[in-house]
């Protein structure tokens, strides 16, 4: 019998990386500098590779005739389980960088905690991904510090991005029924257990960046993990899934 809990949990992991990868790819050819263009597309590629690992594992658990591509291209909005943060539009470059920093800090902490998963394959995916993600975090923290502690214009824009995106930062740490079951099985830790270290890391980076961290107790948006998304996801999927929708089963 299929392990529905683990399947759904793997979809969350695969969808976070897939949706953020797609968002970052939107910068391809439009980055503010050639180096930034290459960096974002390379990070997008790492995330796409990681998503392939998660969704292939989900497909294997499901045991039906759809593979990772079927899961990526033939599910509709409400069947996606990524957090709301990753589907937010790119905005200006500051917005993209702050979104990336919030995600990278969480992603690093989360992958580290998965190294001890009771599921060996999950621990292996985490080990592989962590090496890539720690490089992402190094870069996003560097740039947030440089732009936060930069000119008046860059500082103002960074602080605005920090404030605007804050309400999407908390969903990663909210435990729902599935998270509790998965934690009981020691597949992954409770999301809430990563919260304090996330705050401490963000605070450390913001201090150097001369940015002000919003309140820890602020009200947080949620729903993505359960399939309730902001209006932005549908447009993203419409573009990402166009080919398979228009030409079903098209392949190379």
């Amino acid at each position, binding site marked *: 019998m299929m392990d529905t809990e683990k399947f759904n949990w793997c979809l969350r992991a695969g969808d976070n990386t897939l949706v953020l990868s797609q968002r970052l790819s939107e910068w391809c050819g439009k980055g503010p500098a050639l*180096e930034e263009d290459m960096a974002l597309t*390379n990070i997008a590629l790492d995330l796409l590779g990681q998503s392939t690992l998660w969704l292939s594992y989900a497909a294997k658990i499901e045991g039906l005739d759809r593979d990772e591509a079927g899961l990526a291209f033939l599910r509709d909005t409400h069947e996606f389980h990524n957090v709301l943060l990753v589907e937010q539009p790119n905005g200006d470059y500051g917005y993209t960088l702050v979104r990336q920093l919030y995600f990278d800090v969480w992603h690093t902490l989360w992958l580290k905690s998965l190294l001890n998963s009771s599921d060996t394959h999950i621990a292996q995916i985490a080990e592989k991904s962590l090496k890539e993600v720690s490089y992402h975090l190094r870069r996003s*923290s560097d740039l947030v510090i440089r732009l936060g502690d930069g000119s008046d214009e860059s500082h103002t824009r960074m602080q605005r991005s920090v404030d605007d995106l804050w309400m999407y930062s908390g969903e990663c740490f909210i435990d729902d029924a599935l998270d509790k079951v998965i934690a009981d099985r020691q597949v992954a830790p409770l999301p809430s257990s990563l919260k304090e270290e996330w705050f401490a890391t963000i605070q450390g980076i913001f201090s150097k960046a001369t940015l002000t961290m919003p309140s820890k107790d602020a009200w947080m948006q949620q729903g993505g993990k359960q399939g309730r998304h902001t209006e932005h996801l549908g447009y993203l999927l419409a573009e990402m899934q166009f080919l398979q929708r228009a030409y079903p089963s098209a392949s190379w």
Partner: protein
Amino acid sequence: MVMFTSEQLWECLSTVCDPEIPAVSVVDLGIVRSLTWQDDETCEVIITPTYSGCPATQVITESIEQALQSLGVEKISIQTQLSPAWTTDWMSAAGREKLKAFGIAPPAHCVSSELSSIDISGLNNRTLPDIECPQCGSSHTRLLSQFGSTACKALYRCNDCLEPFDYFKPH
């Protein structure tokens, strides 16, 4: 059924080039982890991906299969292994020399590659090793971009000969 020695098989795969950096082979890069005979007739090749999104992975798998087939191996099974995760420390000494001759600075050795020691804030331990310019040999170089033409490389410039060059990142 022709049997091949382990040396013959490794020799064969050392002719399979990386599609993006044709100067080095998949053996030089440490992508091929083991070559064994299963049931005395199937040649099992264990490979490990470099970066999880590396677009060359599929081509590499196909090239390995073709190379073994042209050697005369009839049954081939290629398995992908994620753990232990690939590291540039597995790159051979010969591979490093070939990279350098090709104009790519070879990777420094990973500083205590234990995962537990990764500085998660990303704020400390920032001293970068001196990277030698593959053109003129000077260590007076600087980082231009953390990402280069592929996921595995960063872009540097030599302050002495002023040439920009690719640096294979320690991973």
